[in-house]
Protein backbone atom coordinates (compact mmCIF):
# COMPACT_ATOMS: atom_id res chain seq x y z
CA UNK A 1 0.00 0.00 0.00
CA UNK A 2 2.85 2.39 0.71
CA UNK A 3 3.86 2.26 -2.92
CA UNK A 4 0.42 3.32 -3.98
CA UNK A 5 0.33 6.44 -1.88
CA UNK A 6 3.76 7.75 -2.83
CA UNK A 7 3.57 11.53 -2.98
CA UNK A 8 3.82 13.10 -6.43
CA UNK A 9 7.21 14.82 -6.09
CA UNK A 10 8.81 11.63 -4.82
CA UNK A 11 7.54 9.86 -7.91
CA UNK A 12 9.02 12.56 -10.11
CA UNK A 13 12.41 12.15 -8.42
CA UNK A 14 12.34 8.41 -8.91
CA UNK A 15 11.94 8.57 -12.65
CA UNK A 16 14.60 10.61 -14.39
CA UNK A 17 14.04 8.48 -17.49
CA UNK A 18 15.71 9.92 -20.50
CA UNK A 19 14.61 6.71 -22.17
CA UNK A 20 11.68 7.49 -24.48
CA UNK A 21 9.99 4.10 -24.07
CA UNK A 22 10.06 4.23 -20.27
CA UNK A 23 8.66 7.75 -20.36
CA UNK A 24 5.72 6.54 -22.46
CA UNK A 25 5.15 3.51 -20.23
CA UNK A 26 5.04 5.70 -17.12
CA UNK A 27 2.71 8.31 -18.62
CA UNK A 28 -0.75 8.02 -17.05
CA UNK A 29 -2.40 9.16 -20.26
CA UNK A 30 -1.53 9.05 -23.92
CA UNK A 31 -2.98 11.03 -26.77
CA UNK A 32 -6.21 9.24 -27.73
CA UNK A 33 -4.83 8.99 -31.27
CA UNK A 34 -1.74 7.12 -30.04
CA UNK A 35 -3.77 4.77 -27.83
CA UNK A 36 -6.29 4.27 -30.66
CA UNK A 37 -3.50 3.38 -33.07
CA UNK A 38 -2.28 0.76 -30.62
CA UNK A 39 -5.82 -0.64 -30.35
CA UNK A 40 -6.19 -0.73 -34.14
CA UNK A 41 -2.96 -2.71 -34.46
CA UNK A 42 -4.09 -4.98 -31.62
CA UNK A 43 -7.43 -5.90 -33.19
CA UNK A 44 -5.79 -6.47 -36.59
CA UNK A 45 -3.20 -8.77 -34.99
CA UNK A 46 -6.01 -10.55 -33.14
CA UNK A 47 -7.60 -11.48 -36.45
CA UNK A 48 -4.24 -12.45 -37.92
CA UNK A 49 -3.00 -14.55 -34.99
CA UNK A 50 -6.23 -16.00 -33.61
CA UNK A 51 -8.77 -15.59 -36.40
CA UNK A 52 -11.04 -13.98 -33.82
CA UNK A 53 -11.96 -10.48 -32.83
CA UNK A 54 -11.93 -9.18 -29.27
CA UNK A 55 -15.14 -8.36 -27.42
CA UNK A 56 -15.93 -7.77 -23.78
CA UNK A 57 -19.64 -8.12 -23.07
CA UNK A 58 -19.76 -11.72 -24.31
CA UNK A 59 -17.30 -12.93 -21.69
CA UNK A 60 -19.56 -11.79 -18.85
CA UNK A 61 -22.46 -13.60 -20.49
CA UNK A 62 -20.39 -16.79 -20.87
CA UNK A 63 -19.62 -16.62 -17.15
CA UNK A 64 -23.10 -15.77 -15.88
CA UNK A 65 -24.48 -18.52 -18.12
CA UNK A 66 -23.11 -21.02 -15.56
CA UNK A 67 -25.66 -19.64 -13.12
CA UNK A 68 -28.31 -18.78 -15.70
CA UNK A 69 -28.50 -22.24 -17.21
CA UNK A 70 -28.83 -23.74 -13.71
CA UNK A 71 -31.77 -21.48 -12.90
CA UNK A 72 -33.50 -22.16 -16.20
CA UNK A 73 -32.20 -25.20 -18.05
CA UNK A 74 -34.34 -24.48 -21.13
CA UNK A 75 -33.26 -20.87 -21.54
CA UNK A 76 -32.67 -20.44 -25.26
CA UNK A 77 -30.23 -17.55 -24.89
CA UNK A 78 -27.87 -19.46 -22.61
CA UNK A 79 -28.32 -22.73 -24.51
CA UNK A 80 -27.63 -21.50 -28.01
CA UNK A 81 -26.46 -17.89 -28.13
CA UNK A 82 -24.18 -17.48 -25.12
CA UNK A 83 -23.45 -20.93 -23.66
CA UNK A 84 -21.54 -21.23 -20.40
CA UNK A 85 -17.82 -21.75 -20.71
CA UNK A 86 -14.34 -20.46 -20.06
CA UNK A 87 -14.13 -19.20 -23.61
CA UNK A 88 -11.49 -17.39 -25.62
CA UNK A 89 -13.29 -14.16 -24.72
CA UNK A 90 -13.06 -14.90 -21.00
CA UNK A 91 -9.27 -15.25 -21.23
CA UNK A 92 -9.18 -12.09 -23.28
CA UNK A 93 -11.11 -10.26 -20.56
CA UNK A 94 -8.61 -11.44 -17.96
CA UNK A 95 -5.88 -10.02 -20.20
CA UNK A 96 -7.72 -6.71 -20.51
CA UNK A 97 -7.96 -6.48 -16.74
CA UNK A 98 -4.26 -7.26 -16.31
CA UNK A 99 -3.23 -4.89 -19.12
CA UNK A 100 -5.17 -1.96 -17.70
CA UNK A 101 -3.86 -2.83 -14.24
CA UNK A 102 -0.24 -2.92 -15.50
CA UNK A 103 -0.69 0.42 -17.25
CA UNK A 104 -2.24 2.01 -14.14
CA UNK A 105 0.36 0.51 -11.80
CA UNK A 106 3.38 1.51 -13.91
CA UNK A 107 2.13 5.06 -14.33
CA UNK A 108 1.39 5.39 -10.58
CA UNK A 109 -2.25 5.91 -11.43
CA UNK A 110 -3.47 2.88 -9.46
CA UNK A 111 -5.61 3.59 -6.40
CA UNK A 112 -8.49 1.92 -4.62
CA UNK A 113 -11.44 4.12 -5.37
CA UNK A 114 -15.03 3.95 -4.22
CA UNK A 115 -16.15 7.01 -6.16
CA UNK A 116 -15.20 8.53 -9.53
CA UNK A 117 -12.63 11.32 -9.24
CA UNK A 118 -14.35 14.15 -10.99
CA UNK A 119 -17.79 15.41 -11.79
CA UNK A 120 -19.88 12.68 -10.19
CA UNK A 121 -20.28 14.52 -6.88
CA UNK A 122 -21.30 17.76 -8.62
CA UNK A 123 -24.34 15.99 -10.07
CA UNK A 124 -25.22 13.11 -7.76
CA UNK A 125 -23.75 14.24 -4.44
CA UNK A 126 -21.25 12.34 -2.34
CA UNK A 127 -23.47 9.41 -1.28
CA UNK A 128 -21.50 6.26 -2.05
CA UNK A 129 -24.55 3.98 -2.31
CA UNK A 130 -25.87 6.15 -5.14
CA UNK A 131 -22.73 5.59 -7.20
CA UNK A 132 -22.78 1.86 -6.58
CA UNK A 133 -26.49 1.57 -7.33
CA UNK A 134 -26.32 3.61 -10.56
CA UNK A 135 -23.14 1.82 -11.64
CA UNK A 136 -24.90 -1.51 -11.08
CA UNK A 137 -28.12 -0.56 -12.87
CA UNK A 138 -26.21 1.19 -15.67
CA UNK A 139 -24.02 -1.88 -16.08
CA UNK A 140 -27.09 -4.11 -16.29
CA UNK A 141 -28.79 -1.87 -18.89
CA UNK A 142 -25.56 -1.78 -20.88
CA UNK A 143 -25.26 -5.56 -20.88
CA UNK A 144 -28.91 -5.98 -21.92
CA UNK A 145 -28.33 -3.54 -24.78
CA UNK A 146 -25.22 -5.46 -25.82
CA UNK A 147 -27.24 -8.69 -25.72
CA UNK A 148 -29.94 -7.27 -27.99
CA UNK A 149 -27.48 -5.68 -30.43
CA UNK A 150 -25.07 -8.61 -30.50
CA UNK A 151 -22.04 -6.85 -29.05
CA UNK A 152 -20.74 -3.87 -27.12
CA UNK A 153 -18.38 -0.97 -27.74
CA UNK A 154 -15.46 -3.34 -28.28
CA UNK A 155 -17.06 -6.49 -29.71
CA UNK A 156 -19.43 -4.73 -32.08
CA UNK A 157 -18.46 -1.06 -32.52
CA UNK A 158 -14.69 -1.55 -32.81
CA UNK A 159 -14.26 -5.21 -33.81
CA UNK A 160 -17.21 -4.97 -36.19
CA UNK A 161 -16.34 -1.46 -37.33
CA UNK A 162 -12.80 -2.34 -38.41
CA UNK A 163 -14.24 -5.10 -40.60
CA UNK A 164 -16.81 -2.64 -41.94
CA UNK A 165 -19.64 -4.80 -40.57
CA UNK A 166 -22.97 -3.05 -41.18
CA UNK A 167 -24.23 -4.02 -37.71
CA UNK A 168 -21.54 -1.81 -36.14
CA UNK A 169 -22.73 1.24 -38.02
CA UNK A 170 -26.29 0.65 -36.85
CA UNK A 171 -25.16 0.21 -33.26
CA UNK A 172 -22.88 3.28 -33.02
CA UNK A 173 -25.54 5.90 -33.93
CA UNK A 174 -28.01 4.26 -31.55
CA UNK A 175 -25.46 4.39 -28.75
CA UNK A 176 -24.71 8.07 -29.40
CA UNK A 177 -28.34 9.18 -29.73
CA UNK A 178 -29.46 7.67 -26.42
CA UNK A 179 -26.15 8.46 -24.70
CA UNK A 180 -26.41 12.15 -25.55
CA UNK A 181 -30.07 12.24 -24.45
CA UNK A 182 -29.24 10.47 -21.18
CA UNK A 183 -26.32 12.81 -20.48
CA UNK A 184 -28.53 15.82 -21.29
CA UNK A 185 -31.10 14.64 -18.75
CA UNK A 186 -28.51 13.95 -16.05
CA UNK A 187 -26.56 17.18 -16.66
CA UNK A 188 -29.51 19.36 -17.65
CA UNK A 189 -28.16 22.35 -15.68
CA UNK A 190 -24.77 22.39 -17.36
CA UNK A 191 -25.00 20.18 -20.41
Amino acid at each position, binding site marked *: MSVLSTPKDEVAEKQPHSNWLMTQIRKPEWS*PYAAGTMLGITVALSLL*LAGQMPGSSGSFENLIAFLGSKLDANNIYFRFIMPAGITWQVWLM*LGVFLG*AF*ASAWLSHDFRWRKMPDK*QWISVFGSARWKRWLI*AFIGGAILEIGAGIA*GGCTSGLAISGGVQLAPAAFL*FIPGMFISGIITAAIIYRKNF
Partner: protein
Amino acid sequence: MSTVVIPLIIGLAFGWSLHKAGMTRYHKIVNLFRLTDLAVLKFMMAAMVVGVGLIYAFVGFGWVTLAISTPVYVLGNFVGGLVFGVGMAGAGF
Protein backbone atom coordinates in the same frame (compact mmCIF):
# COMPACT_ATOMS: atom_id res chain seq x y z
CA MET B 1 -1.69 -22.36 -25.72
CA SER B 2 -3.54 -20.64 -28.54
CA THR B 3 -6.78 -20.66 -26.59
CA VAL B 4 -5.26 -19.16 -23.44
CA VAL B 5 -1.96 -17.39 -24.12
CA ILE B 6 -2.94 -15.54 -27.31
CA PRO B 7 -6.18 -14.05 -25.94
CA LEU B 8 -4.32 -13.10 -22.76
CA ILE B 9 -1.65 -11.23 -24.74
CA ILE B 10 -4.19 -9.54 -27.01
CA GLY B 11 -6.20 -8.63 -23.91
CA LEU B 12 -3.11 -7.13 -22.26
CA ALA B 13 -2.55 -4.81 -25.23
CA PHE B 14 -6.27 -4.02 -25.35
CA GLY B 15 -6.50 -3.16 -21.65
CA TRP B 16 -3.28 -1.20 -21.78
CA SER B 17 -4.56 1.01 -24.62
CA LEU B 18 -7.91 1.49 -22.87
CA HIS B 19 -6.25 2.75 -19.72
CA LYS B 20 -3.76 4.93 -21.59
CA ALA B 21 -6.65 6.54 -23.48
CA GLY B 22 -8.40 7.30 -20.18
CA MET B 23 -11.36 5.03 -20.96
CA THR B 24 -11.33 3.77 -17.38
CA ARG B 25 -12.51 7.16 -16.09
CA TYR B 26 -16.13 8.12 -15.47
CA HIS B 27 -15.76 11.70 -16.69
CA LYS B 28 -14.13 10.67 -20.00
CA ILE B 29 -17.10 8.49 -20.95
CA VAL B 30 -19.80 10.87 -19.77
CA ASN B 31 -18.19 13.96 -21.30
CA LEU B 32 -18.24 12.25 -24.68
CA PHE B 33 -22.03 12.36 -24.52
CA ARG B 34 -21.98 15.94 -23.19
CA LEU B 35 -19.79 16.67 -26.23
CA THR B 36 -17.23 18.43 -24.01
CA ASP B 37 -14.42 15.86 -24.37
CA LEU B 38 -14.27 13.81 -27.53
CA ALA B 39 -11.32 11.62 -26.44
CA VAL B 40 -13.44 8.45 -26.66
CA LEU B 41 -14.43 9.29 -30.22
CA LYS B 42 -10.84 10.13 -31.22
CA PHE B 43 -9.69 6.87 -29.66
CA MET B 44 -12.34 4.80 -31.44
CA MET B 45 -11.88 6.51 -34.78
CA ALA B 46 -8.09 6.20 -34.65
CA ALA B 47 -8.48 2.48 -33.86
CA MET B 48 -10.89 2.08 -36.77
CA VAL B 49 -8.74 3.93 -39.30
CA VAL B 50 -5.66 1.88 -38.41
CA GLY B 51 -7.63 -1.36 -37.97
CA VAL B 52 -9.57 -1.09 -41.25
CA GLY B 53 -6.35 -0.35 -43.13
CA LEU B 54 -4.45 -3.26 -41.64
CA ILE B 55 -7.28 -5.79 -41.78
CA TYR B 56 -8.22 -5.09 -45.37
CA ALA B 57 -4.53 -5.19 -46.30
CA PHE B 58 -4.33 -8.64 -44.63
CA VAL B 59 -7.47 -9.68 -46.52
CA GLY B 60 -5.90 -8.46 -49.74
CA PHE B 61 -2.79 -10.53 -49.10
CA GLY B 62 -5.02 -13.52 -48.39
CA TRP B 63 -3.71 -13.87 -44.83
CA VAL B 64 -7.04 -13.61 -43.01
CA THR B 65 -10.73 -14.11 -43.56
CA LEU B 66 -13.10 -11.67 -41.93
CA ALA B 67 -14.64 -12.85 -38.65
CA ILE B 68 -17.81 -10.78 -38.41
CA SER B 69 -19.65 -12.28 -35.47
CA THR B 70 -22.69 -10.01 -35.41
CA PRO B 71 -25.26 -10.53 -38.16
CA VAL B 72 -27.11 -7.54 -39.58
CA TYR B 73 -30.44 -7.19 -37.87
CA VAL B 74 -31.35 -3.57 -38.45
CA LEU B 75 -33.83 -3.09 -35.66
CA GLY B 76 -31.90 -5.19 -33.13
CA ASN B 77 -28.52 -3.59 -33.77
CA PHE B 78 -29.99 -0.10 -33.56
CA VAL B 79 -32.35 -0.62 -30.61
CA GLY B 80 -29.59 -2.50 -28.78
CA GLY B 81 -27.39 0.54 -29.33
CA LEU B 82 -30.12 2.79 -27.93
CA VAL B 83 -30.42 0.68 -24.77
CA PHE B 84 -26.64 0.42 -24.48
CA GLY B 85 -26.14 4.19 -24.67
CA VAL B 86 -28.44 4.77 -21.67
CA GLY B 87 -26.35 2.43 -19.51
CA MET B 88 -23.07 3.81 -20.80
CA ALA B 89 -23.95 7.46 -20.15
CA GLY B 90 -25.49 6.61 -16.76
CA ALA B 91 -22.75 4.42 -15.34
CA GLY B 92 -19.81 5.95 -17.19
CA PHE B 93 -18.22 2.67 -18.20
